[in-house]
């Protein structure tokens, strides 16, 4: 019974919905920190510069890579939803969701290579 009730969780589009929700949640949690950090510029260029030096650490760059992936996957996943809701239905949604994840991973990879 329990297995049947949770069967939808093996569906790729259920996973896409979960990724969209979790990426949105993570971005919403990150945003106040992002805004606070940019606000350091109110204290002059040096204040922001001191903070940005800390972001040179490899673990910060890895975290930023994760954030870039989350932003890209939330954008592309959201775009897929907007198209579904507003335009005529088109088949291949699983492929489109997979493509969104792949493009997001590629963008994050390019960011990491550039940033390192």
């Amino acid at each position, binding site marked *: 019974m329990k297995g049947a009730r949770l069967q939808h969780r093996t569906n790729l589009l259920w996973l896409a919905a979960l990724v969209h929700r979790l990426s949105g949640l993570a971005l919403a949690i990150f945003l106040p920190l992002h805004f606070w950090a940019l606000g350091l510029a*109110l204290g002059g*260029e040096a204040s922001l510069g001191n903070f*940005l030096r800390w972001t040179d650490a490899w673990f910060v760059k890895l975290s930023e890579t994760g954030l870039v992936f989350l932003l890209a996957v939330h954008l592309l996943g959201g775009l897929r939803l907007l198209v579904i809701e507003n335009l005529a239905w088109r088949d291949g949604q699983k492929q489109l969701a997979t493509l969104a994840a792949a493009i997001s991973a590629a963008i994050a990879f390019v960011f990491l290579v550039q940033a390192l």
Partner: protein
Amino acid sequence: MNVRLYIAQRLTAAVMVPLVAVHLAVIVYATRHGLSAADMLSRTRGSLAWALFYGIFVVAAAIHAPIGIRTVLAEWSPVRGRGADLIATGIGLLLLALGLRAVAAVVLP
């Protein structure tokens, strides 16, 4: 989710599609030789275009994110109804205040 919130979330999503795409491009471009405050601020300070870009971005995000959080609270937590409304409104106001402060910090000359 009521209809007004649904429309507000979708409209802000549509507004943010090009903004996030440009933001991602700027992130990759700006960090190619390490992110520096001088480079960043020389691009944004005194620029009306970036002020408008980030100003609209902040307002849209401050509307979009709390509506999503309200839905997550209602579906995944015991907090719902009035409680979820209050938390979402608080988060929206916090994002708006911190976001506009951040925009001012990087665009004011």
